[in-house]
């Protein structure tokens, strides 16, 4: 007997016993054909039915039931860890390590870095992304970590709200993801000096052998490039799997494909969530002066020379350096 039977227990036992026992002691031929039918149903034979409902021609759909445990026992806690665990780690890290200050303070001279359009598409993707993480967390892990503390009515409202918000925000997220991925990729190509950046963890560590290091970085540093490509790849996986879940009438995925999409969606969510927390901490708390880039599109000159020296040298050399009026 395969694993499936064990899991479904009596339901299967009865259904199949009907099929198996029923072949009576008649003839060897009849027996063979009943065994065949048994095997056919188990293998997901599709027959005729008067019902027009989805998948109704198939009596039994088989899949590896371990996907259910995978989702409940691994993906749900992992997403919780990717959100709350990462936040906790970062708070502790900043307490011990301190933030990356501008050595020479703010110069007050603002260097052009991002266009207004770039800032806009960043937030077009980022705000929905944050809300998709939170609502996705309710869908994947809520029943284990949130529902026990709520009454049935409040829980029903929360999970329903999460679904509605998730469904709607998926669209701006995908537009933002696509624009960022396509328009920004040229600045995110890996370079040799990126390896050195990783060797000293970007110079953000304030103790031991890493202290006071300032690795080279172009427009984007190696850490940002890693985030960019993780976002590009898992953003694609999450968008494709999400589309299958969101528009089943359009794509008509099989049930097993939908389950696969659910798993891939969850795995991508965990990765994007963990990276997002790092990204947000780096931009807001860790790197003094970093946030300004995605507010006005300009950065302080001292910030540019400290964190993106190669880029600053380059724009200075080729004359594209532009200051805020």
């Amino acid at each position, binding site marked *: 007997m395969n694993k499936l039977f064990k899991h479904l227990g009596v339901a299967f036992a009865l259904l199949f*016993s009907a099929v198996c026992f029923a072949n009576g002691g008649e003839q060897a031929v009849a027996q063979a054909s009943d065994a065949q039918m048994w095997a056919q149903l188990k293998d997901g034979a599709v027959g005729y039915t008067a019902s027009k409902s989805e998948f109704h021609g198939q009596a039994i759909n088989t899949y590896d039931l371990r996907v259910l445990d995978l989702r409940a026992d691994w993906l749900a806690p992992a997403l919780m860890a990717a959100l709350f665990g990462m936040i906790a780690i970062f708070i502790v890290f900043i307490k011990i390590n301190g933030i990356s200050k501008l050595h020479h303070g703010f110069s007050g001279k603002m260097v052009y870095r991002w266009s207004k359009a770039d800032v806009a598409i960043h937030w077009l993707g980022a705000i929905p992304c944050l809300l998709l993480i939170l609502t996705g967390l309710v869908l994947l892990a809520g029943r284990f970590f949130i529902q026990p503390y709520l009454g049935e009515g409040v829980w029903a409202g929360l999970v329903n709200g999460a679904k509605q918000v998730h469904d709607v925000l998926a669209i701006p997220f995908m537009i933002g993801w696509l624009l960022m991925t396509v328009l920004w990729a040229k600045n995110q190509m890996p370079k040799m000096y990126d390896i050195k950046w990783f060797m000293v963890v970007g110079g953000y560590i304030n103790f031991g052998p890493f202290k006071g290091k300032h690795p080279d970085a172009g427009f984007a540093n190696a850490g940002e490039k890693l985030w960019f490509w993780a976002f590009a790849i898992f953003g694609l996986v999450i968008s494709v799997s999400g589309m299958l879940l969101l528009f089943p009438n359009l794509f008509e995925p099989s049930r097993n494909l939908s389950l696969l999409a659910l798993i891939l969606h969850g795995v991508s969510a965990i990765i994007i969530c963990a990276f997002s927390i790092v990204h947000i901490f780096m931009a807001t708390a860790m790197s003094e002066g970093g946030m300004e880039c995605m507010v006005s599109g300009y950065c302080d000159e001292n910030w540019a020379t400290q964190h993106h020296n190669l880029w600053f040298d380059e724009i200075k050399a080729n004359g594209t350096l532009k200051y805020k009026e």
Partner: protein
Amino acid sequence: MATLKFLCDTKRCIECNGCVTACKNENASALEWGINRRRVVTINDGKQGEASISVACMHCDDAPCMAVCPANCFYKTEDGLVLHNKDTCIGCGYCLYACPFGAPQFPKSGAFGARGKMDKCTFCAGGPEENHSEAEMKKYGSNRIAEGKLPMCAELCATKSLLAGDADVVSAIFRERVAYRGAKNAAWG
């Protein structure tokens, strides 16, 4: 407490769809257009090895729908039935992906054919509303279990192919049939 189950004896099923009709009629108050809680599937139709089987929710012991539902709206009754709360259901469709028997179904509602609240066979046991209340009738249909009766589909099966009731009793009836048919040494599984 009893554990209630369905059993379909494929040697007796004649694809009359009586169970389907009985179910539709009994639960009409709750069924939106296009929902079939029970169906008959015929494999090898018109060929050698033709066989029919009546399929609905099997009220699984370790139910996949229950395991996967993000809203956690399923519950198991003391009779072993798998029922759900439509007020909590968000219509995500996960249960349909997870159910081996294709039991969960959805009325199409809203823009782009978004799914409405899931509907499936209740073993004619209603739902989480007060027994026989209007809310129960409208959302879940009939509640024959509360009246001490068995599901309408099995009760009306002309050949008594479809059996419903306590798992032990149902399988005892079935074993007796098999013995009578002369299957002394042909038992599988």
